[in-house]
């Protein structure tokens, strides 16, 4: 009967030690960041300037899932291009005690990785947890269209537009049975979104809302005097530049609305 042969065991143990050391070194080396993430404060400032939503990535260098997200999801070129175009990117590291408190108390983060989309005035629009490539991709593509839910209120928007030399875009809905969600169909156009983000401050007024009704009455004297249906009213420094009636053709063809809004920008620069 042959004796015990520990030769293989020693070789395998040596390989195990070497490979484990390499893996540990790779585990603790800070990974390459495929995207340029700002701090949350920097991102908020940048968002106020560019009028884009903020995508906040809550992460920890201890979390394998966060690392995997960097290596898989955020290394995808198409997704990277889309994210850079649509969002101001911010990262909040939970390895920092203050950030941990912020994440727990203010944003109520309950797991990693979590991504939160904030409006340009830092109001939460949507969030997602986990690292499924397809659901994250879909969520990132779809969420900006919900930005209508987090538009500034009329007074805030008016003040902001005047201060920043931008056109105030009032999306007015006086047709009581018409849901505001219809605008999202035409807003599913990247070009149009970027144009609005760069040169406009969008606000909305819905006649079915008590507060909005008061503002409409102040603007037009009475509800009956306001244009009926869905209208985009475009103001610059308190002066009405144009009112665009959103007829079915305009609502279904983003390029027509884009051209209209581009013309208004030209009008503004001629003033």
């Amino acid at each position, binding site marked *: 009967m*042959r004796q*015990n042969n520990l*030769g293989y065991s020693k070789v395998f143990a040596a390989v*195990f030690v070497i*490979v484990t050391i390499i893996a540990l070194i790779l*585990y603790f080396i800070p990974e390459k960041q495929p995207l340029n993430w700002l701090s949350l404060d920097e991102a908020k400032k940048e968002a106020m300037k560019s009028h884009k939503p903020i995508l906040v990535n809550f992460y*920890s260098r201890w979390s394998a899932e966060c690392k995997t997200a960097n290596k898989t999801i955020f290394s995808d070129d198409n997704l990277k291009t889309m994210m850079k175009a649509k969002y101001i990117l911010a990262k909040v590291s939970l390895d920092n005690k203050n950030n941990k408190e912020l994440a727990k108390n203010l944003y109520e983060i*309950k797991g*990693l990785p979590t991504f939160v989309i904030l409006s340009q005035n830092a109001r939460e629009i949507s969030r997602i947890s986990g690292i499924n490539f397809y659901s994250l991709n879909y969520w990132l593509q779809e969420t900006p269209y919900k930005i209508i839910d987090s538009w500034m209120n009329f007074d805030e928007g008016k003040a902001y537009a005047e201060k920043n030399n931008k056109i105030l875009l009032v999306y007015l809905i006086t047709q009581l049975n018409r849901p505001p969600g219809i605008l999202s169909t035409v807003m599913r156009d990247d070009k149009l979104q970027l144009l609005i983000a760069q040169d406009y401050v969008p606000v909305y007024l819905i006649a079915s809302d008590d507060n909005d009704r008061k503002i409409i009455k102040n603007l037009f004297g009475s509800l009956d005097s306001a244009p009926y249906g869905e209208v985009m009213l475009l103001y610059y420094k308190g002066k009405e530049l144009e009112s665009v009636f959103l007829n079915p053709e305009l609502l279904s063809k983003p390029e027509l609305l884009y051209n209209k809004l581009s013309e208004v920008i030209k009008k503004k620069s001629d003033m």
Partner: protein
Amino acid sequence: MTGISFKYFLFEFRKIWTIPVIIISGIIFFFSLLITFLPLIFGAYSAEGPIQEINVSMILSSAFSILVPLMSFMFGAGIISNDIKSHWLRTVMSRPVTKADYLLTKIITASTAIFIILILCGTIPVIILSFLTPNKVVFDIVHFISIHALYLGETLTYISIAALFSCWTPGFMNVFILGIWMLVDMISSSVINNYFWDNGIALVISDFFFPSGFKEAASVIISNGDFPVEKIMWGLSSLFGFLSLALLGFSFIQVDKGIE
């Protein structure tokens, strides 16, 4: 004889296909055909259907992630202890075969058998499906080969763990321990991710509790991510760690006494 002999490998390979193993493999093969082709028969793979495209590597990765642990339970249960019980180990050891040759041959044999079942129940049906489906087929040869290689590594790791347990416990018990370990891993990951997600040490423990480097490397590859060197290193680390432990554990077994 020194080193692993092909003749001995073939001998062990023939021995592994017992009647229960063939029946269970047949049942798994039947179900894999049902799962693969039923949606095709019922028209789910039409242009208007819910399935937009067939990503071969992604389907195979999902299938292998279920099949590998399942097969490892079947082939790894009692991989050593059954031979001790039936006195087969004593017979082998009376020949010019070292303990290391025996154990490595057993691990390679079981892993090869599992890999063949993976090809039969996973790869071949999915390849046939990709020719029959009217949907767009996404096929990347590098991903395809990588997925197979990585899941072969995962299989070798599972069988090495089973062999380590099998040195000390009978067949049923080593499957039970492996099952409990996997269950604890799932529960602890869920608890840590929900309640201790902000604790760095807890996250690291959760990462390393159960070896899954090769599986995670496969998921990185199918997501078109960077080459997962770190994940592969963890996979190799687990594989060689458990192989050396299994060999060490096996070296303590006194062949004449066995584990009973």
